[in-house]
């Protein structure tokens, strides 16, 4: 037994040596900070003065389980915004980019030009993107001088200006619409996926008289399932982590601007985490928000992976059955 272990060790030692830098990096820069943040989430601490252990107090306060407070109201609003962003920007963006990839794959006239055109916005830094979008969605409040382009059109046809960025009911929808500008990156991934699909399936479907939509739903989508799952997980994680776009749209930077957009209309979980930690000096609550983000991401990812595994197993069983 001992000889066997030694033999295994000798055989694998180079492998262990090769992965060691990553393992050390993971322990030092991921696992340790995570454990440290778990500990901090159980503290009432401002990062500078003494720590008080409060157990699950920060989690209870964020959820508003004992009493409703401004903190719990903002937490739930941020969470709601994140879910909306995940569903409409994440899944919506996914559908849009998949459709665009399918159309681009048809080699329509000028498809190379459109491919570059759709992809270009994805290269813009989100902060710059947010700043760029302000003059488009800005509300000039009837001043007639700095109304954003969209509101300019609205007023041109006799409508009343819309407070896209400052209305708590509209802020998140504005962010979702803005995020569609970057669906080009998803399109490229799907295009690569579609390019790898066997042409014979399409030819067979065409011979059977299947139209474009039929080929899309019955050939492209099922065969792209692994790519779709990967993109879904990435979209979910991206939706949970949204910060830069919200911060740049809210113009936070001035210490007098302590809210997440006018009326906290652009609140998201990571933005709330930043505000709690670095504006309100509540490191415990900030760490607890971080753990909520992690847990939500984990639940969704595991659910998708389990679903994906079941789908694969069902597929395999189906093949065996034939």
């Amino acid at each position, binding site marked *: 037994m001992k000889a066997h272990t030694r033999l295994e060790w000798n055989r694998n030692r180079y492998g262990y040596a090769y992965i060691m830098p990553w393992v050390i990096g993971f322990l030092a820069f991921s696992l340790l900070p995570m454990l440290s943040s778990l500990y901090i989430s159980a503290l009432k601490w401002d990062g500078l003065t003494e720590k008080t252990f409060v157990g699950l107090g920060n989690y209870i306060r964020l959820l508003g389980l004992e009493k409703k407070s401004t903190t719990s109201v903002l937490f739930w609003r941020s969470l709601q915004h994140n879910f909306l962003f995940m569903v409409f920007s994440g899944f919506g963006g996914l559908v849009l980019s998949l459709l665009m990839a399918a159309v681009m794959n048809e080699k329509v006239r000028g498809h190379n030009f459109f491919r570059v055109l759709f992809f270009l916005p994805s290269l813009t830094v989100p902060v710059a993107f947010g700043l760029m979008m302000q003059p488009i969605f800005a509300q000039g409040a009837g*001043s007639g001088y700095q109304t954003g382009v969209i509101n300019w059109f609205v007023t041109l046809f006799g409508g009343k200006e819309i407070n896209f960025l400052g209305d708590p009911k509209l802020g998140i929808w504005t962010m979702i619409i803005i995020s569609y500008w970057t669906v080009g990156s998803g399109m490229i991934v799907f295009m690569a996926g579609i390019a790898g699909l066997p042409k014979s399936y399409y030819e067979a479907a065409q011979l059977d008289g299947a139209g474009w939509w039929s080929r899309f739903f019955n050939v492209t989508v099922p065969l792209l399932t692994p790519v779709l799952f990967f993109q879904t997980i990435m979209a979910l994680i991206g939706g949970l982590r949204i910060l830069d776009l919200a911060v740049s749209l809210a113009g936070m930077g001035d210490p*007098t601007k302590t809210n997440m957009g*006018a009326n906290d209309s652009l609140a998201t979980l990571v933005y709330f985490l930043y505000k709690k930690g670095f504006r309100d000096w509540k490191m415990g609550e900030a760490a607890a928000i971080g753990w909520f983000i992690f847990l939500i991401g984990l639940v969704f990812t595991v659910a998708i992976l389990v679903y994906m595994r079941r789908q694969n197993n069902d597929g395999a069983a189906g093949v065996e059955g034939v």
Partner: protein
Amino acid sequence: VKKLALIALVLVAYGATLFAEPTVVRYSRWAGGSETEMFQALVDSFNSTVGKEKNITVKFEPLPWGAYWEKLRTTVLAGDAPDVISLSNAGENGSYLTRGVFLPLNKEAGMADAVKDLAKPAVESLTVNGKYLGLPIGLGVRAMVYNKALLKEAGLAMPDPVKPMTWEQFMKMSEKLSKKGADGKFTQYTLYCSMDEMVDSVCNQYGVQMTDSKSKPSKVTVNTKDGIAALAFIQDLYKKNVCPPNTGEWQTAWGTPDNAIATGKVAFMLSGPWGLPTVKQANIDFGTCPVPVFAGKEKFRATRGYINGIAVYKGSKAKDGALEFVKWLTSKAGQLEFTKTGDLPANTAALAEAQKNADKVYTNGTPEQYKAYFADLPYVTTAWNLPTSEWTSLFSNTMLDMYKLAATPAATAAKLEKEGNLLFAEMWD
């Protein structure tokens, strides 16, 4: 040989002191545009006098206002803050004063003398439990700054530079100053200012405090008959188009509260001396006057002001050099140099001299243009000094609905009271 060795040793020691590396003191402050040059000149003045004598070099690290506070937060948390930190209660003083970030100055040599010469209320605003955690260097006062050409065009007389007009008179003037263009849209407004600050001053002018304390509040005290009347006056500024509609963001068409009259489309702004260089650069002929008062409530005269201070970082590696700089900057000589940057000095002797010889001290305006600041100085009320930004957020969000005419003054006062009381209970829990 022994003598020669001794002489050589003395020469080496002397040479070492001559060529010793100076103590470098990092001094950080918000500054932008011409302010950066003015503060660099202030630092140069120290370096070429006391600094040269004591082998200290102060290195000025300017940053834009927002970036300054962002960086301060992270450097303090990382234990790498500058040696001398600038403070303003328009910024985040409260966050730091309550968290043991600064060196208490009480027992440091020469500090008791420095404190003696400074304006007492300003010193108190930076004192916690009897410890001087920072010292005031400047008194920022907001007064009305107006565009003379727009008043003249409207056929209005120039306001008195020292005696405040009444709000009733101001509202009457507004009827001629807020103007619409041919398309029905406003092309000119009477006043553009930071309304959150104005709310506090107007409440004070009604004899109402918004909270029971500005450093450790336990309840909101604005939900009274007078408090609601004060809020109704604020809402009237929007209803009657005295001010441009408030969207919660600065609207570049009307500038900012500190340069609005430079746009040529705003008649009055509520700004401090720091706003004057921009107006001067825009070649606007301007005058200043005190903040108006309500008829019959003159005894409650009030305006928003700030105390600019400096503190020594507790973890400073150049503590002695930093203390020397603080001592110089709060002395009469240092304060007269500082006054050139625009603020009113916190040192009482320097303040008296600045008032007497404003023509020699101030470069951004005439003595006449500085009169309103000196006149409003005794009526200054300052911002909240709280450990977190939660109250500012709640206040700002709640008031915004009222500015936009989406909430009544009574509903606003009730909401502030309900949510503010809850917040304060949590804040000190």
